[in-house]
Structure formats: structure tokens, C-alpha cells
């Protein structure tokens, strides 16, 4: 406890120091001590942060479950009136897990980057950026209030921009960076709107003596916020949707996913770290963190689930046809993020977070593997020019294949446990549509991943002789992280073995203090909650409200995950009946459920194996079959549609960008003719005025009143010299205005 309290602030601070050091002195350091030393400095800070994070994690595990939350107040940040925003960190089960991912995988990717970025002329700059990214991501995860979280949120967006455009001397990279940044801005607007709405409604309640926007505080006040409404809609629905827009941008959901595939222009370690393992999961993390809010916003969750499932299948289908190895992985990432949001949308937050964890492991391994292949092939990314690389790069190849097993959901791997958990949650809530889409997308995933593997590592090589001969295994610091992550992706799944397979859902259990899953569909849950509340209010009408505070910890009799505890505290929530309902369902439906779960699991395993086999036939066994299929015009047009990514970029270009461009042209015209015109007119007018006064002076004024005329002339000159940019004149004019005001004041005083 004490150790956590002391050391947790160092977790984000260390990488920040590294970033500052490398950013300021990196160039000289690089020149003096060489590349390796720079790389070691770059790896050291996340490494140290990782050591702290892992130590603290085990300390946290040793604490009793109810106390697993440490809040560290580092310093006050700003405060106005009742707003008191602080640099406050919170270390609880959720952020502890995220820290493990960020520092653990982050460290491995740093090590990998030392090999990948070898010989780059701005090696130090890369490490500075990546360290800064790590620091902001840790800040995002550790932030105790929305503002600190938003700081990290913006920080990772900035670093993502810097790193996508890392090789900014190529036009396409700079454009991709800009695209990512601007798309994220759209999302951030949603996030900010959410924060402002919460602020606004918190301000309206005079009972709130202090507003810190911390998550703890929000969860306590959620009862009050749930009763508010805005624009005729319940407040929490609107706020939840606003935050989801932020998540859309950061986590690449429809319609804001377009930046992620383009982001592959950055160096591959960046793709692995930012665009697969950590940053893109920020949205998922945010929703899991605010699960108390989303549990009370069923409509929003419904929208989330629909958008997520569409994203999932949409991008998976695009992935089927891409030839760029990193593009396939990018669309795969979007699709997997879709899975996570499906889990969020059905209220199975812990399942989504678990998929986040497993996805981070296998996708980082896949990206790093593809990076190793790309470097070995002399920066060739087209899979059509690869093939047969397994012989040349055995360690990379086998790690890649292991990770592919994980992503397809082969029994025993982490993808199997996490993906099936999500699908089962969707199915068990009666959301057969979501389940079906997820199921089909799982098959597609398996197909395109095996297609990638077969095209890259198996068969005869299609690379030119020279490249193939020179292709070799990368240095150890590149290969080792891939292997470690591949093995990790084999093992992580066993953390969360579901009950019907004889496990205990340890992971969900571990997260339960912070992340409270819904046991039934969100809409049903909400309805029950409202009904209970109404009944409760009637029941307790005479009792003082202070006694109404009632908390129910659902016991885990039937072995199902804890449910029923809904974070609607605030003294008016009773969930006895709700929990009873959950237990009934658990008792009654246990046998059926496990049978059904088995069936679904077997079905999805068979289905993914089938599509993998299909990939084998089409790309390795009988390529003629593929050519045969492509002969039909229908399949050809489908292929073209998918290959061109449903023409979404073109659509955006036509619908949004061109309209914006028209707007800019209009604005510039307005600027040119109207604004400039007014300015010129004023200038002309003052000139005329000066001339008139001058003329007046010359024509009509006698020598007697020369002084006054002089003053008028001076005034005219003063007006015409307004824009001269001279400090003395500016101060003089402000003084003149001030003294004129004083005179007016005195005049009024005397008059009254």
C-alpha cells in the first residue's frame, strides 16, 4: 500500500523524463555515445516503469479485494470556486491491468524498435516520441479524473500524429499523420462535450460542495445525474454517446475508423505499440472505466453494440482482399476493436477488457512479426512479392503462426477464450444478430490471417532472387520480443477460463471491484432498475432517505460471475429483486447454458477452422480455384469493392472534404472582398477625414485658434497612424482613452 503510494507517480513520470531528456539532448547524446546507448536510454525508462508497475501489481494482488484501489494526489492542478481539479492518480484493478499491458508490451516494443530503427538518422527523436507516448498513455490510464484522462487522451493523439508522420519527408506519411490527427479531433470534440455536460449538470446541484470530476465522485453522483435530461433525452444517454464519439475517434470505429489503416505509414513499432496494443484501446478502457455510467444508458449501449458489430464485419471484409501486409493487420485491428465494443455494448465490460488484453498480446506480436518481414524484404510490404519465408526466418515465422492461432481463436489460445466470451455474452442476452455478425467476422478473421500467413511464409517465393537470398532472420533484440509475445498470447487466455470449461473466470473476478458487468441485456437491466427504484421509493416513502442506502453484494452461489451490484449508490437504489432474478436465471438455466455454450464454442471453432482451410486451398493448395472464382463478374466486382475499401475514403472526400473546400473558397472570398473591403474603406475614410480637417484648418481657421486646429490635425494623424505598431503611440492612445474616460466620469460626478 505504502509502496504503491510512493512509487506509482513514477510510472508516468519516468517515461516523461526520458522523453524530455532525449528530446532536448538526444541529438548530442546520439552523436557522442552512439545508437545503442540512445536506444538503451530510451528503453530504460519504460523498463523501470514496468518494474514498478509489475511490483505494484503483485502488492495489489496481495491486498484484500475490497481495498484494491489506491488514490495518489500528487498536486492540485487548477481550481476555480467549487472546481478542484488535481493531478490525481488512481491505481486500482483496472488501471493496474492496463499498466501491465502498457509497460510490459511497451517495453518489449521499445527493445524491438532498437533493432527496427537501426541506422535511422533521427533514432533519438523516435525514442523521445515513443517515451512521450508511453507517458501520456500511462497518464490516461492512471488519471483519477476526467481532466487528467483527457490530458493523456490528447497526449496520445499528439504522439500518434508525430509518430505516424515520423518520416515526414514523404508526402503520404505527413498526410496520413494529419488525417489521424484531424479525425481524432472530431472524436475529441465529443469527449469534451461529454465532460462539459457533466460539469454543467454538476454545477446545477447546490448540494455538491466540490467538483473534482473524479471517477469515484462521478459514480457516487450518478444517481443524481441519471435523473437529469437534456434536449428531451436522458442526460446519461447523451453524455454516454458523447464519450462514445470520443472512443470512436480514438479506437477507430465507424465512421471515424478511416485514419487507422493510413496510420500504417508510420514505423512498424509504432503500429504495434500505438495502433494495435495501447492507444486504440483507450476508448475501450474509457468505457470500462465509466461502466457505472453506461450501465444506466441502455440506448447508448445499444448504439455502441450496433456500430461496433458493423465495424467488426465491415473491416474484416476489407481485410479479406488487401495485399499490403500491414493494411491487413490494420483492418484486423479495427475489426478486433469492434469485438471489444460489442462486449461493451452488451454490458460485458470485463469480457471486452479481457479481449483488449489478449488482443494487445497477439496483435503486437503480429505487427512486430510483419515488421521483421518487411525489414528482411528490404521494405517490401506487398504480400504478392513474398512467400516461403518460413525457411529463412524460422523464429519470426513460427511466432507469427502462433499469434495467428491466437487471433483465429484456436482452442487454448487467448483469442479463443476472449472472443468466445464476447460472442457468448451477446448470444446469451438474446442478441442473435450481434452474435451472428461476430460469428461471421470470426470466420473472416481466420481466413484473412491464414491467407496472410500462407502468402508470406509458405509456398514458393515470389520475391526476386536477390531479395530472397539476402533475406535472413533479424537480430535477437528484434526477434525475442516477438517470440515472448507469441508465447504470452498462448498463455494469457488461461487467466479467464469460463465456468462451463471448469474454470473460475478469474480475470472477470479480479476486475469485479471496478468493472461491474451486467448480468442481463442493458435495456432489461435498466428497466428492472427503474421498476425497482419506483417500488423502492413507494416503499420507503415515509422512511428518512438516509436509511435507504442499501448495497447488495451478489453472492456467487451458482458460480456465475458476480452480478447485480449496480453502481447506482446515492442512497436510493435497491437491487434485491434484480439480484434475485439473476440468481434464478443462474440456477435454472445453468445446465442448458453450459450445453449451449459448448455448442456455440464448437461451432465457432469448426467455422474458423473451415475458413482457415479455405484459405489454405485458395492460396496454397489449389490456386486455380481462386482464379476460377475470380472469373465470375460478380465475385470480381465484390473483390474490387472490398479491395477499394467500400470507397469510403472517396465518399468522405466527395461528401465532406469537397464541401469543406467549397466553404473555404467562400470564406476566402468573404475575407477578401468584405473584410478587407471594410478595412480599406475605414482607411480611406480616415484619410478623407484628415484631409477635410486639414482643409478646414487651412481654409477657415484663423491664426488665433491655430492650437486647436493643430490638435484636430494631430488627432487625424493619430487615427491614420493607428496601425504603425509603435509601442509609445499605442500606450499614448490607451492613455488618452483612459483620461477621456476619467473626464467623463468626473463630469458625471459633478452633474449628479
Amino acid at each position: 500500500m505504502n509502496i504503491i503510494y510512493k512509487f506509482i507517480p513514477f510510472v508516468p513520470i519516468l517515461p516523461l523524463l526520458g522523453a524530455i531528456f532525449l528530446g532536448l539532448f538526444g541529438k548530442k547524446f546520439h552523436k557522442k555515445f552512439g545508437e545503442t546507448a540512445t536506444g538503451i536510454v530510451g528503453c530504460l525508462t519504460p523498463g523501470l516503469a514496468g518494474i514498478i508497475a509489475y511490483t505494484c501489481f503483485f502488492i495489489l494482488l496481495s491486498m484484500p479485494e475490497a481495498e484494491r484501489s489506491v488514490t495518489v494526489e500528487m498536486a492540485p492542478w487548477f481550481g476555480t470556486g467549487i472546481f478542484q481539479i488535481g493531478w490525481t492518480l488512481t491505481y486500482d484493478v483496472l488501471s493496474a491491468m492496463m499498466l501491465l499491458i502498457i509497460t510490459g508490451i511497451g517495453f518489449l516494443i521499445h527493445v524491438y524498435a532498437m533493432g527496427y530503427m537501426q541506422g535511422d538518422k533521427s533514432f533519438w527523436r523516435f525514442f523521445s516520441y515513443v517515451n512521450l507516448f508511453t507517458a501520456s498513455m500511462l497518464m490516461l490510464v492512471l488519471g483519477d479524473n476526467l481532466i487528467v484522462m483527457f490530458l493523456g487522451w490528447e497526449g496520445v493523439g499528439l504522439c500518434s500524429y508525430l509518430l505516424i508522420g515520423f518520416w515526414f519527408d514523404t508526402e503520404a506519411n505527413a498526410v496520413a499523420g494529419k488525417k489521424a490527427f484531424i479525425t481524432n479531433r472530431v472524436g475529441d470534440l465529443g469527449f469534451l462535450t461529454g465532460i462539459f455536460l457533466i460539469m454543467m449538470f454538476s454545477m446545477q446541484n447546490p448540494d455538491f460542495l466540490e467538483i473534482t470530476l473524479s471517477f469515484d465522485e462521478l459514480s457516487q453522483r450518478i444517481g443524481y445525474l441519471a435523473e437529469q435530461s437534456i434536449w428531451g433525452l436522458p442526460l446519461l444517454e447523451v453524455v454516454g454517446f458523447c464519450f462514445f464519439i470520443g472512443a470512436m475517434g480514438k479506437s477507430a470505429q465507424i465512421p471515424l475508423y478511416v485514419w487507422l489503416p493510413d496510420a500504417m505509414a508510420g514505423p512498424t513499432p509504432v503500429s504495434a505499440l500505438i495502433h494495435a496494443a495501447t492507444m486504440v484501446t483507450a476508448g475501450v478502457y474509457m468505457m470500462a472505466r465509466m461502466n457505472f455510467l453506461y450501465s444506466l444508458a441502455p440506448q447508448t449501449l445499444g448504439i455502441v453494440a450496433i456500430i461496433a458489430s458493423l465495424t467488426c464485419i465491415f473491416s474484416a471484409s476489407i481485410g479479406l482482399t488487401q495485399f499490403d501486409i500491414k493494411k491487413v493487420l490494420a483492418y484486423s485491428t479495427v475489426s478486433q476493436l469492434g469485438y471489444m465494443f460489442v462486449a461493451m455494448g452488451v454490458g460485458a465490460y470485463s469480457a471486452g477488457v479481457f479481449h483488449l488484453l489478449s488482443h494487445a498480446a497477439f496483435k503486437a506480436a503480429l505487427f512486430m512479426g510483419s515488421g521483421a518481414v518487411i525489414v528482411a524484404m528490404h521494405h517490401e510490404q506487398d504480400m504478392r512479392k513474398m512467400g516461403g519465408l518460413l525457411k529463412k526466418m524460422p523464429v519470426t515465422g513460427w511466432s507469427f503462426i502462433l499469434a495467428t492461432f491466437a487471433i483465429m481463436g484456436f482452442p487454448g489460445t487467448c483469442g479463443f477464450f476472449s472472443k468466445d466470451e464476447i460472442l457468448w455474452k451477446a448470444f446469451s442476452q438474446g442478441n442473435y444478430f450481434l452474435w451472428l455478425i461476430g460469428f461471421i467476422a470470426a470466420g473472416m478473421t481466420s481466413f484473412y490471417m491464414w491467407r496472410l500467413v500462407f502468402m508470406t511464409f509458405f509456398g514458393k517465393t515470389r520475391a526476386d532472387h536477390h531479395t530472397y537470398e539476402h533475406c535472413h532472420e533479424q537480430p535477437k533484440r528484434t526477434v525475442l520480443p516477438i517470440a515472448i509475445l507469441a508465447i504470452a498470447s498462448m498463455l494469457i487466455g488461461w487467466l479467464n477460463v469460463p465456468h462451463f470449461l471448469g474454470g473460475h473466470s478469474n480475470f472477470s473476478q479480479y476486475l469485479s471491484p471496478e468493472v461491474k458487468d451486467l448480468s442481463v441485456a442493458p435495456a432489461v437491466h435498466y428497466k428492472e432498475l427503474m421498476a425497482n427504484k419506483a417500488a423502492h421509493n413507494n416503499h420507503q416513502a415515509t422512511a428518512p432517505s438516509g436509511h435507504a442506502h442499501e448495497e447488495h453484494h451478489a453472492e456467487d452461489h451458482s458460480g456465475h460471475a458476480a452480478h447485480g451490484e449496480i453502481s447506482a449508490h446515492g442512497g436510493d437504489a435497491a437491487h434485491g429483486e434484480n439480484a434475485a432474478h439473476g440468481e434464478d436465471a443462474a440456477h435454472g438455466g445453468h445446465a442448458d447454458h453450459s450445453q449451449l455454450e459448448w455448442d456455440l464454442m464448437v461451432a465457432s471453432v469448426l467455422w474458423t477452422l473451415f475458413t482457415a482451410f479455405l484459405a489454405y486451398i485458395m492460396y496454397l493448395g489449389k490456386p486455380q480455384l481462386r482464379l476460377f472464382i475470380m472469373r465470375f463478374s460478380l465475385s470480381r466486382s465484390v473483390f474490387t469493392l472490398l479491395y477499394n475499401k467500400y470507397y469510403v475514403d472517396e465518399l468522405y472526400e466527395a461528401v465532406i472534404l469537397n464541401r469543406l473546400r467549397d466553404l473555404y473558397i467562400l470564406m476566402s472570398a468573404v475575407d477578401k472582398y468584405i473584410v478587407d473591403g471594410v478595412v480599406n474603406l475605414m482607411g480611406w475614410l480616415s484619410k478623407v477625414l484628415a484631409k477635410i480637417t486639414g482643409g478646414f484648418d487651412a481654409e477657415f481657421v484663423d491664426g488665433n485658434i491655430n492650437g486647436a486646429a493643430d490638435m484636430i490635425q494631430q488627432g487625424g494623424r493619430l487615427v491614420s497612424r493607428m496601425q504603425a505598431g509603435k509601442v509609445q503611440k499605442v500606450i499614448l492612445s490607451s492613455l488618452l482613452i483612459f483620461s477621456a474616460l476619467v473626464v467623463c466620469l468626473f463630469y458625471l460626478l459633478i452633474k449628479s
Partner: protein
Amino acid sequence: MELLTVISLGIGLLVVASSLVVAFNQNLLRSAFAMFGALFGVGALYATLQADFLAMVQILVYAGGICVLFIFGTMFTKEVTEDPERSNPSYQNLFPYIAIVIIACFMIFCLQDAQWAEGSRWALDSTVKDLGRRLLTDYLLPFEVVSFLLLTSLIGAMALILQGGKK
């Protein structure tokens, strides 16, 4: 009338007179020397306000340092400062004087009306010890920042002069 009041009124008159010379004298060198009087007078006023350390610092830093710098600066740029047309107040434009008179009257008018929450006056032997303690406890951070600023400005001034010399 107390002796102290008489003395401080005299000093105040000295300050006002010297700053009048600073503001209106046609010869800039004379203005610079008058500056000495004004700054010294302010130092003396500090002394009457029981701020002995401040008075010392004022005389050392301002009268001894900055004022000499000004005199040197004026002398270095002698050929341009002696041009009365350019370096001196332009009496043709009356606006500044009117504005200043109005503002000064306004300030004094406001001061006469103001209600200050005056506390008890104290009788300290010397403020040096207490000031030193304050600077190294309550005001440690500003103190350090200011010392860094002084160092920076020292180096900056030298760099400016030396760079010009290279050309």
C-alpha cells in the same frame, strides 16, 4: 511637525524635482544625472519607511549600478543623444501632457478617497535577518527563479555585446 515628516517631505520633493528633470530636460546627460537623484531619493524614502535593507539595496543596485550604466550608455551614444531635435520631448504634441496631468490628478483623487486596512505599525530593529529568513523559506522558489534569471540576463547581455563585436 515631526522631524521625520519634515525630512521625508524634503526627500519627496527631491524625488519629484529630479524626476521632473528626467522627464523634461533637453540634455539627456543631465537627465541621467537627475536620475541618480531620483533613485537616491527613493532609497532614502525606503529608509524612512523602516526598510533599511531595501534602502541599502536601492542605493547599491540603482544609484550605484543602474544609474552609472545609464550615464555610461548616454555617454557612449553621445553624438546621437546630443541631437536635441531627436532625443528630447517633442513639445509640439500636447496630448501626452494633458493625459498625464489628468491621470495623475485622478490617481491622487482616488488615493485620497481610498480606505486602507492599515494594520499596526511595528518597530523592528532591522529587517535584514527577517527578510533573509523569509527569502529562504516562504519565498525560496521565487528567490531561486530570480537568481537564475539574473544569471541568464548576465549571460544574455554579454552574448549580445560580444556578438555585436564580432561583426
